[in-house]
């Protein structure tokens, strides 16, 4: 039910806070002082049906939505805007309550619809993949790898994008049904080779923002891992590209240490404060550098990578080396690393 509520709050028309996470809402109705406000007075509300006015003269309104959890709408102007909106907020909360009462039924229905949509997407993507393969097949080369290498840059980029899209889509069934992961068998996994594959696949995407991905090794160990492990380097490389500054190198390292394999990815960008280091691995949570807050978002990648790591009994750690500030915000070398223990 809580999962459903969190999904629902991603589409609320008003900014709100639930379990310390900020949901900006589809229309950002919060006024500008909230974005820079550090007082967090709106978060100190402890009782339901309370209206607080902060030092900036903005209203917060709280409502109990589960037995112990408060939902707080905040940053509402005190003028007539508030009076007008209060009825809407109350109505929204009533709808949420009603929604949660029928949550199970609705969830089933939504799940069915999502499943159907997802099922419709797969054939379309498969057709694109088959056609890209046909084009690659026409290139010269004695085997498929050579044919890919001998294809034009455009075709290689197209094919890489298709493969990345396929990889992303392959996450969905596991997110819907994590039990499915146990159905796949562990097999010797050449980590370096896999990371090298993703470095090449993401090359074109990174170049769009004039970033280079540099891979250092070597690693020769092939620990027994489930095929889904591949999604960890996929997510970490993609995130490094997305969240690093332009025209920067992204350094990836895969090395053996005794029988362990160490993976490390380093990129220059805004940093995440220490108190949020664990939270960034939670589902639908994203750290926003502009507001320096945790906000709701698709935020699936790190959550999923962490889930896969837990299945394989290792942790993904985040840390950073401070490099000062940019636009008054802390920046540094963001480092995600994990060690796959010897088996």
């Amino acid at each position, binding site marked *: 039910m809580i999962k459903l509520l969190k999904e629902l709050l991603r589409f609320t028309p008003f900014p709100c806070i639930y379990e310390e996470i900020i949901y900006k809402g589809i229309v950002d109705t919060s006024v500008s002082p909230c974005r820079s406000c550090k007082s967090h007075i709106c978060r100190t509300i402890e009782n339901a049906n309370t209206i607080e006015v902060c030092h900036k003269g903005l209203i917060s309104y709280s409502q109990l939505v589960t037995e112990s959890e408060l939902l707080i709408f905040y940053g509402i102007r005190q003028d007539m805007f508030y009076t007008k909106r209060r009825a809407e907020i109350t109505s929204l909360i009533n709808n949420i309550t009603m929604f949660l009462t029928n949550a199970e039924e609705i969830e089933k229905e939504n799940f069915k619809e999502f*499943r159907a949509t*997802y*099922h419709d997407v*797969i*054939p379309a*993507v*498969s*057709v694109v*993949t*088959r056609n890209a*393969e*046909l084009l690659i*097949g026409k290139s010269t080369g004695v*085997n*498929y*790898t050579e044919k*890919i290498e001998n294809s034009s840059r455009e075709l290689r980029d197209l094919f890489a994008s*298709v*493969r990345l899209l*396929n990889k992303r*889509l*392959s996450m*969905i*069934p596991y997110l*819907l*049904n994590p*039990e*499915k992961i*146990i*159905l*796949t*068998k562990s*097999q010797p996994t050449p980590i370096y080779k896999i990371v090298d594959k993703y470095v090449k696949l993401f090359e074109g995407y990174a170049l769009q923002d004039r970033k280079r991905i540099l891979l250092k090794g070597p690693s020769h160990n092939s620990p027994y891992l489930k*095929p*889904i492990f591949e999604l960890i380097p996929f997510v970490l490389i993609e995130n490094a590209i997305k969240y690093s500054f332009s025209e920067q190198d992204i350094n990836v390292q895969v090395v053996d240490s005794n029988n362990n394999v160490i993976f490390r990815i380093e990129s220059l960008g805004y940093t995440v404060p220490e108190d949020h280091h664990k939270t960034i691995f939670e589902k639908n949570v994203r750290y926003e550098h502009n507001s320096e807050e945790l906000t709701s978002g698709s935020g699936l990648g790190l959550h999923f990578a962490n889930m896969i790591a837990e299945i394989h009994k290792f942790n993904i750690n985040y840390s950073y080396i401070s490099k000062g500030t940019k636009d008054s915000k802390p920046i540094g070398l963001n480092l995600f690393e994990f060690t796959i223990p010897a088996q």
Partner: protein
Amino acid sequence: MFGLFENKCRIEDLKFDSTFDQIKKRIRILVVDDDKSHFPIKAFKDNNYNIDYWSKITSENMHRIVDGDYDILILDMHGVASKDVSSNGGVGLLKYFKQSNPAIYILVFSNYEFSINDCKEIQQYSDDMLQKPVEYVTCSPVVDSIIKDKFNAKRFSDILIDYLQSTGMTNKDIVNTENDICKNIKKGQSHEIIRTNIKSKLLKPETITAVMNIVTAFINYYSAGLK
């Protein structure tokens, strides 16, 4: 049991030299999916894999899987079985295929979520999973590693012994049955002679079929190394 194998002919001892490409051409792969675009059939064919495609399993074609016409089955779980053969799609066929053709390697090819019961069935009767959507470059290494790692005399020997043990046969009879089969294979005897020979040891027709499927799959693989 191990002492019983002394001086006996064993399938796992039938070793031979053959290249990966020789074996690859002999390993018969069947892809069953209601949408042909899901699996890169053409790319596999272009790269010399022995691969067939069916959109559905029906009462007319099902015997080919049961009778050991294929070594690797890449099976979608939904929309692939006509109602007269399974009321639960591909999941409902896994147990039957594995019991009648124990040597077949079943790769579940699906993007669906499964019920807990289906998960159990898949875990028990399939060998691994392949997640949709796939590209040739990602699934051909999977198939290659199956061919390299799973198609060897030791695996066929283990499958035969495990299967015979599951029928309640005594260890002594198991060893003797393998010994007879092995000698016949070495002599290059026909399937009919091997079948007649094992009929005297195995009473149930379904047991004879299953053992003959293991033998057929092994001979198919073994003959890749015969000059």
